[in-house]
């Protein structure tokens, strides 16, 4: 579980929508060491304000030491990152946290909503590397509109895994929510569902999985200062009223380990 702090050059800057940006970074060690579901802390700008790094899931890595992050502009930090230019460098620290656990023998279903799709590309890639057969596997991508999902869709089409899309306004795929799609699928009971997205979405996916007695791994968020277990600021409620730290115990958890009242 080695960690590195690198000055990563921005190789490519892509404005996917008005608010969504994808950065390709040259980060030798981090890209080599990263596992699906892990994240990096990126410093937005070089000044004392905003002070803290921002956490981002690793979208995918390449064998030539590159790494992508995909984010939505939601505030000052992401706003600054959205103004970066190719050739500039960013201080990146990672890979951090515990990622998804993969069992090559079991069928999977990946369920992503909005920016929660980010870590699932890396996961899908790894699953295809370790599994012989992905015929019964499934990817469900949800978002508000076609515009949000479409730029991401083509990357997932590289895999031999069935994809279903769903949007709030019906502009792409099914009209509704990811759980509406999940209900139409009959998940095999040894299936693992992996999900990342807005918390209400993940909770309804988790509730559905519980009903169907299917294992579910979620990637959750919390505010973070250090991202590495030093500040103890990123706690969330786990089962039995205990606390866990999202950055070091997670960000991926089995839903039954969390204190979610499903």
């Amino acid at each position, binding site marked *: 579980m080695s960690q590195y702090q690198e000055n990563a050059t921005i190789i490519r800057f892509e404005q996917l929508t008005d608010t969504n940006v994808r950065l390709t970074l040259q980060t030798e060690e981090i890209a080599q060491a990263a596992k699906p579901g892990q994240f990096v802390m990126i410093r937005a700008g070089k000044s004392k304000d*905003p002070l803290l790094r921002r956490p981002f899931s690793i979208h995918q890595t390449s064998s030539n030491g590159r790494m992508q992050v995909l984010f939505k502009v939601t505030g000052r930090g992401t706003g600054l990152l959205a103004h970066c230019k190719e050739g500039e460098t960013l201080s990146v620290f990672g890979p951090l946290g515990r990622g998804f656990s993969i069992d090559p023998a079991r069928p999977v279903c990946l369920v992503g909503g909005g920016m929660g799709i980010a870590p699932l590309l890396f996961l899908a890639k790894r699953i295809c590397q370790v599994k012989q057969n992905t015929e019964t596997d499934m990817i469900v991508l949800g978002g508000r509109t076609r515009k949000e999902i479409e730029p991401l869709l083509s990357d997932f089409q590289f895999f031999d895994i069935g994809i279903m899309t769903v949007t709030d306004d019906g502009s792409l795929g099914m009209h509704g929510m990811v759980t509406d799609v999940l209900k139409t699928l009959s998940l095999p009971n040894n299936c693992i569902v992996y999900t990342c997205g807005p918390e209400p979405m993940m909770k309804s996916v988790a509730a559905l999985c519980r009903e169907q007695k299917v294992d579910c791994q979620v990637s959750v968020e919390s505010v973070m200062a250090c991202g590495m277990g030093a500040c103890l600021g990123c*706690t*969330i409620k786990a089962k039995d009223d205990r606390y866990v730290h999202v950055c070091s115990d997670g960000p991926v958890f089995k839903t039954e380990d969390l204190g979610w009242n499903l």
Partner: protein
Amino acid sequence: MEFVGNHDPFPDLRVKIGALELQNPVLTASGTFGYAREFVDLVNLHRLGGVVVKGISLFPRMGNPPPRIVETACGMLNAIGLENVGVDRFIELKMPYLRGIDTQIIVNILGDSLEEYRHITEKLSQVPGIAAIEVNISCPNVKKGGVAFGSDPDMAAAVTRVVRDNTSLPVIVKLSPNVTDISLIAMAVEQAGADAVSLINTLIGMAIDLRTKRPCLANVIGGLSGPAIKPVALRMVYLVARSVSIPVIGIGGIESAEDALEFMLAGATAVQVGTASFINPRASEEVVEGIGDYVIREKLQSVRDIIGALESD
């Protein structure tokens, strides 16, 4: 004779905090460096002057509900609530690793009664590998209606005495800035037998989310740290260094060697790097390197030459 031409590659950075000898004046601040192991991939721990570990209480504490942290202008507020594994598990699980680092290990302790401080001190005094105890007196005294020990000279002195009387290790008392006159507290703990004081702990503050009309922290109030507090900390270090004759350790918003050297000019014998480690995990080691470069560049005999060397008219 000294080296001619080429500079001395090994500047003298040693300082003494009472009986505690540090290879350089840079320590990590409690609660911002975990139990050091978290940083081993990123920092050469052996190069640090010392490591001050996360505050330890007699029994494990769960800490406060989330959200526990919020970013503010050039700083952050935290209300971690002193989450820690408790002294017994600390000794069992954390000390074996810490002992292996070639630096001074300082254990930060906290309690909500004098009894608790006494118990922890007794337990830690039996443990090999601990170089000193830093006493966090910013905690509420349960028996006195939750008033912080550190806010009253008598209570601060009482805690200091309890720790002093139960250990032969150097005792550093960490002062709270949330007081009217920090020098009074510093003088009281000096009288009570402290070997050194460290300051400042976080400044209490608050942040509100206008959108939700709620406090940003579940605990409502939290402690402010980071570059935002540096001027306040510098002034307090300056005042305290002039009021006591024991060594002062400067803390508050230190990110660079320049920041650290300013605290030393104001009278600090050593410094602690806190929040900066979250943004740059290597911050503490870089401060060590930067101070070394400064000593060479300014052709000082030793870093000790700048302690309290502030010039004024």
